């Protein structure tokens, strides 16, 4: 084992000698820094190899030939080594970042300061002597102070002075604390002090301890005493900010972690509270920020606050944390800290490389900010920071929430989750600002209708298409500066993969089936490689289709019942719906991989055998689908909503997973699943996300992804049968008798039917065809929810039946419509018309589709209606049945409108040359038609397997008589209906075709009523805009965006809170100092009061 003293000696020597080397040769100077920093990573790695990790072995190194406490000692353990690896790794990448800047005289000093900083933080991590820690703290602080000035702006000097004042106060407190501790315990050595902890168990001892703690906390920028911190992040060079937030703060945090054994109960509570408050308020503040760097700064402050909270809670609730997961609190801290260090540093570097300063100006400037590589890096870093799988923060979040809830610490858990949600919101907002295309205003949440007849559709200007732009972009992306964020990303990805393997497999590799959960990650990696080596897009999609088919063939046969039904929906449905993508030309980096990963994570929901596995797949699904939504031309606003709602839902699920089978669990889990399904009130993300996605991918979201929530409902159905109001609520009052007996399923049922109604109703007034379909999907999912909530055999059968048939007809419709949009280049229905002659096959598909959706016999849709109403009436849910019928009538309206306005009426001049949709888009349509026809002809083919699937859950209430299915109420013979319909249809048709054959004659549409004269423009004769005006007049009050308004209110509450809190940060250095003093004095008096 290499002595840590060599590490320190090496850094010292290199720093001292660097000016001399630098004078001789600049290159040599840089090399020295790189070599030395590389060694600082290598040495802890060597320790890790030498140490026994299982027992968390520690080795103590003495100095000066005396043993502690006489002399200063250093401790090398697993904890120290791991932290040093990440901290020094971050610093090494920082060095790479700084080398990018070929600025003149700063170079040498920046290098020296970097080394002194690293020396300081290494000392902080290794040192076990309190005063020695102070010295190292000063070394790292001073290095940082000097580094802050690297931008050489007045702002950076201002920030530097603020930082130094705060740091100075912290040092003073630390010194006073240390010297009193020394006087009381007679030692400066931490281990000695911990051994003599009882000496400090009095008011003076706690006060002295508090002084040290307060000093460390102040260094870590607690709320509200942290204004200078944000100022520094805003003013300093992003490279320095990366060091501040990653390297330095992490090391100081480690010191806090080291001294926690000294803390008593009161102090831990105070520390936890400070950390938690800092976390939540920083997130609020960051949300309000316009300056990217300040935003990142607040985020860093918040993350460190989270770390503090976790450590304090971990010590408070020791057992809960150590027993719930291997490694206990340390693993947690490592995961959170490391994840934050690399991702935040990476993001700071990104902001530095691309020169992103203000979110506002990014919105204004119509340039593409990031190319594909940059977008990928920023996307990964942002996902990592937001805690998506497989990145370390995901696992950490899981452990923390698990432990907190296990201990019953609900408040902290919810604070952490809410804070994380806010954080994800603003981080992804920035991401979207950075990557979105110039035509995307970022605010599109609903259809956009031009004022009058629109100008020609704007062609998307090819970003950077000019030679200069291309050169500039290549230069930007190939320059050395990308190394640092790239390395950070690589580290995060590697750790993420490793952790995923660790957590998911947990050493139980018994066959390839255990690996299935990791498949999405493997896919992402593999397809990224494909992108790098420029495999053609069509080949990528082809491979993806083959892979999903293979996945289905290998894994689905092992399933049965409901899982199999959903497996087919998720896998087979997706595979078919990938076909239209083959139509695309050119490169679409990341698309195929993301898509396949989404499909696999959906599929993996079927195989999840534990809560963690489920949540892993669920979150993976969320993030991959988010990255798919983002690709839409104007999707960034919608994508953000989608992400925030999905994540909120996921957090709700996460919390719900730990309440066993109590009503609370049902509530939380239910909310999570309902968000995914987009039920009313939680639906506002849905239309945008479905509609603004690329046309050929909307179908996934609508027909496949939305079923994930339903699947989980089925899986956990037992939860929802219980009464919603826990026993004992409002006991003894009349309220109780009123509320008791209301089960969750009753609520779900109403929610489902209201959603069905609202979906149909909102679809009615949309001019944008994709929004129509999106709302339509929402309505259909409402039916599924309603049927599910019935908790009867017929209800469940219907829910599954709807899920399967909805996949077919909605998938078909979306694909058909994407073909139309692809050809006509518009999504507004009233701008189309008369396309039946140009796109007959598509028309036929849509015709079949709408007949099926609306439930008109003889196609499959009727089966669903029949089962639904039968089951509803059986159950006695009459009013729901009536509302469902109303909803289905309204559905008929918008469906008619859909087909009429697009395909019938007058053909527009500009569409006279439109041709049929490309072959790749027709294939899924044909598959869909075939499926619908088959099931319409022989519904028993579908009904009987579904009956078998739900058989384990309910007593059977239906019986079969040949092809007739009999319920307790009625009967339905789909086959007979089909024959009769065909008969009554064929007779008149044949009459026309045979008997009246000779005297029919086809003429143009203007021939009769306009007496063969042509009106000026076809548009004026095509009735398409505001089609159901009477409805709007009669019931328009119903489609006020109440839910949207509600959620906006929620957001604005957060924003108002953020801007109110912001007022604390006046920018005045003295106010900042005052806050520090107030912070200290308040905590101190709380603490002493608590004694």
């Amino acid at each position, binding site marked *: 084992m290499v002595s840590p003293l060599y590490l320190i000696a090496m850094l010292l020597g290199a720093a001292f000698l660097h000016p001399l080397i630098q004078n001789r040769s600049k290159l040599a100077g840089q090399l020295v820094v790189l070599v030395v920093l590389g060694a600082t990573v290598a040495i802890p790695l060597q320790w890790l190899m030498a140490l026994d990790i299982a027992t968390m072995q520690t080795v103590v190194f003495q100095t000066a030939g005396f043993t502690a406490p006489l002399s200063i000692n250093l401790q090398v353990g697993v904890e120290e080594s791991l932290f040093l690896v990440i901290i020094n790794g971050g610093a090494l990448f920082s060095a790479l970042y700084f080398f990018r800047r*070929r600025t003149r005289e700063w170079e040498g000093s920046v290098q020296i300061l970097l080394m002194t900083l690293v020396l300081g933080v290494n000392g902080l991590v290794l040192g076990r002597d309190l005063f020695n820690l102070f010295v190292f703290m000063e070394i790292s602080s001073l290095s940082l102070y000097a580094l802050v000035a690297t931008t050489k*702006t*007045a702002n950076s000097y201002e920030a530097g002075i603020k930082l130094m004042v705060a740091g100075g106060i912290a040092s003073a407190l630390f010194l006073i604390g240390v010297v009193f501790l020394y006087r009381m315990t007679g030692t400066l050595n931490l281990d000695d002090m911990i051994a003599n902890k009882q000496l400090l168990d009095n008011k003076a001892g706690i006060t002295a301890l508090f002084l040290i703690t307060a000093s460390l906390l102040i260094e870590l920028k607690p709320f509200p005493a942290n204004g200078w911190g944000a100022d520094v992040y805003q003013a300093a060079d992003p490279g320095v900010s990366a060091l501040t937030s990653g390297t330095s703060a992490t090391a100081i945090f480690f010191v806090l972690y080291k001294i926690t054994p000294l803390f008593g109960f009161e102090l831990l509570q105070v520390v936890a509270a400070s950390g938690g408050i800092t976390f939540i308020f920083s997130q609020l503040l960051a949300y309000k920020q316009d300056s990217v760097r300040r935003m990142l700064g607040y985020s860093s402050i918040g993350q460190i606050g989270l770390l503090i909270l976790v450590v304090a809670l971990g010590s408070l609730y020791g057992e809960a944390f150590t027993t719930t997961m291997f490694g206990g609190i340390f693993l947690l801290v490592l995961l959170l800290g490391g994840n934050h260090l690399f991702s935040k540093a990476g993001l700071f570097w990104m902001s530095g490389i691309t020169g992103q300063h203000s979110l506002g100006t990014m919105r204004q400037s119509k340039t593409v900010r990031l190319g594909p590589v940059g977008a990928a890096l920023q996307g990964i870093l942002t996902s990592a920071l937001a805690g998506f799988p497989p990145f370390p923060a995901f696992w950490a979040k899981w452990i923390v929430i698990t432990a907190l809830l296990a201990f019953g610490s609900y408040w902290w858990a919810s604070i952490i989750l809410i804070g994380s949600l806010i954080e994800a919101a603003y981080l992804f907002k920035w991401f979207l600002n950075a990557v979105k295309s110039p035509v995307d205003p970022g605010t599109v949440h609903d259809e956009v209708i031009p004022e009058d007849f629109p100008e020609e559709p704007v062609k998307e200007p090819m970003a950077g298409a000019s030679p200069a732009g291309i050169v500039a972009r290549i230069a930007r992306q190939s320059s050395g*500066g990308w190394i640092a964020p790239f390395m950070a990303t690589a580290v995060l990805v590697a750790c993420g993969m490793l952790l995923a393997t660790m957590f998911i497999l947990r050493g139980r590799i018994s066959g390839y089936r255990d690996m299935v959960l990791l498949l999405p990650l493997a896919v992402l990696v593999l397809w990224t490689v494909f992108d790098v080596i420029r495999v053609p897009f069509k080949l990528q999609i082809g491979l993806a289709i083959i892979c999903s088919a293979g996945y289905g063939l290998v894994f689905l046969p092992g399933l049965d019942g409901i899982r199999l039904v959903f497996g087919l929906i998720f896998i087979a449905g997706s595979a078919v719906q990938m076909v239209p993508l083959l139509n695309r030309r050119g490169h679409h980096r990341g698309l195929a991989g993301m898509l396949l990963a989404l499909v696999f994570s959906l599929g993996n929901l079927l195989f999840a055998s534990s809560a963690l596995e489920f949540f892993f797949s669920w979150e993976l699904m969320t993030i991959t689908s988010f990255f798919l939504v983002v690709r839409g031309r104007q999707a960034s606003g919608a994508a953000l909503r989608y992400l925030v709602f999905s994540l909120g839902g996921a957090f709700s699920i996460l919390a719900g997973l730990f309440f066993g089978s109590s009503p609370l669990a049902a509530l939380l889990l239910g909310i999570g699943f309902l968000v995914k399904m987009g039920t009313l009130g939680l639906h506002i993300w849905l239309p945008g996300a479905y509609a603004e996605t690329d046309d050929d991918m909307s179908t996934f979201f609508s027909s496949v992804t939305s079923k994930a929530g339903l699947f989980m409902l089925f899986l956990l159905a037992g939860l929802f049968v219980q009464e919603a109001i826990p026993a004992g609520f409002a006991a003894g009052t009349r309220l109780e008798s009123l509320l008791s007996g209301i089960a969750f399923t009753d609520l779900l049922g109403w929610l489902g039917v209201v959603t069905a109604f609202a979906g149909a109703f909102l679809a009615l007034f949309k001019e944008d065809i994709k929004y129509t379909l999106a709302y339509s999907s929402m309505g259909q999912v409402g039916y599924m929810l309603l049927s599910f909530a019935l908790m009867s055999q017929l209800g469940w059968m219907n829910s599954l039946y709807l899920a399967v048939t909805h996949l077919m007809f909605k998938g078909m419709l979306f694909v058909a419509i994407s073909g139309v949009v692809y050809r006509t280049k518009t999504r507004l229905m009233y701008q189309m018309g008369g396309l039946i002659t140009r796109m007959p096959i598509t028309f036929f598909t849509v015709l079949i589709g709408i007949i099926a959706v609306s439930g008109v016999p003889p196609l499959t849709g009727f089966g669903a209606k029949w089962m639904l109403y039968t089951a509803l009436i059986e159950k006695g849910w009459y009013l729901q049945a009536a509302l469902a019928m109303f909803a289905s009538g309204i559905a008929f309206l918008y469906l008619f409108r859909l087909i009429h306005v697009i395909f019938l009426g007058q053909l527009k001049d500009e569409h006279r040359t439109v041709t049929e949709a490309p072959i790749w888009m027709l294939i899924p349509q044909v598959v869909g038609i075939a499926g619908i026809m088959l099931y319409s002809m022989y519904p028993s083919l579908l009904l009987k397997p579904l009956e078998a699937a739900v058989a384990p859950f309910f007593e059977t209430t239906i019986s079969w008589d040949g092809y007739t299915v009999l319920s307790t109420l009625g009967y339905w013979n789909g086959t007979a209906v089909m024959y009769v319909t065909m008969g009554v249809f064929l007779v008149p048709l044949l009459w026309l075709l045979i008997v009246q054959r000779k005297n029919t004659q086809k003429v143009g549409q203007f021939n009769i009523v306009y007496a063969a004269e042509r009106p000026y423009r076809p548009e004026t004769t095509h009735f398409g805009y505001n089609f159901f005006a009477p409805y709007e007049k009669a019931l328009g009050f119903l489609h006020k965006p109440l839910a949207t308004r509600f959620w906006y209110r929620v957001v604005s509450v957060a924003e108002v809170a953020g801007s109110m809190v912001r007022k604390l940060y006046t920018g005045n250095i003295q106010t900042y100092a005052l806050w520090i003093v107030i912070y200290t004095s308040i905590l101190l008096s709380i603490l002493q009061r608590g004694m």
Partner: protein
Amino acid sequence: MSQLMLVLFGLLMLVGAVAALYLKDTVSAILAAGSVSLVASLVYLLLGAPDVAMTEAAIGSALTTVVFLFSWARIQHRPQPSKNPQSEESDSNPDDQEDHQL
């Protein structure tokens, strides 16, 4: 005896400290602050810490005061910013532009 001296020194220090804060003339304030350090070194001597006393005298009162004076002189020498208040920032703008290009 030594207690009396300590109290005396202490009062001196406090007076000097207040003077350092409230004297109009900055140079006098600097000198007052230096004198606080100087008296502090006497206090250290009283307390049996000659090493500290020496250091305080050499560093705290002498060198620090000189550094203060030098920097005050430097600030005084250029009462106006070089050209306009933003000049240094604009100086650094090439840096940022370089960022954009890279």
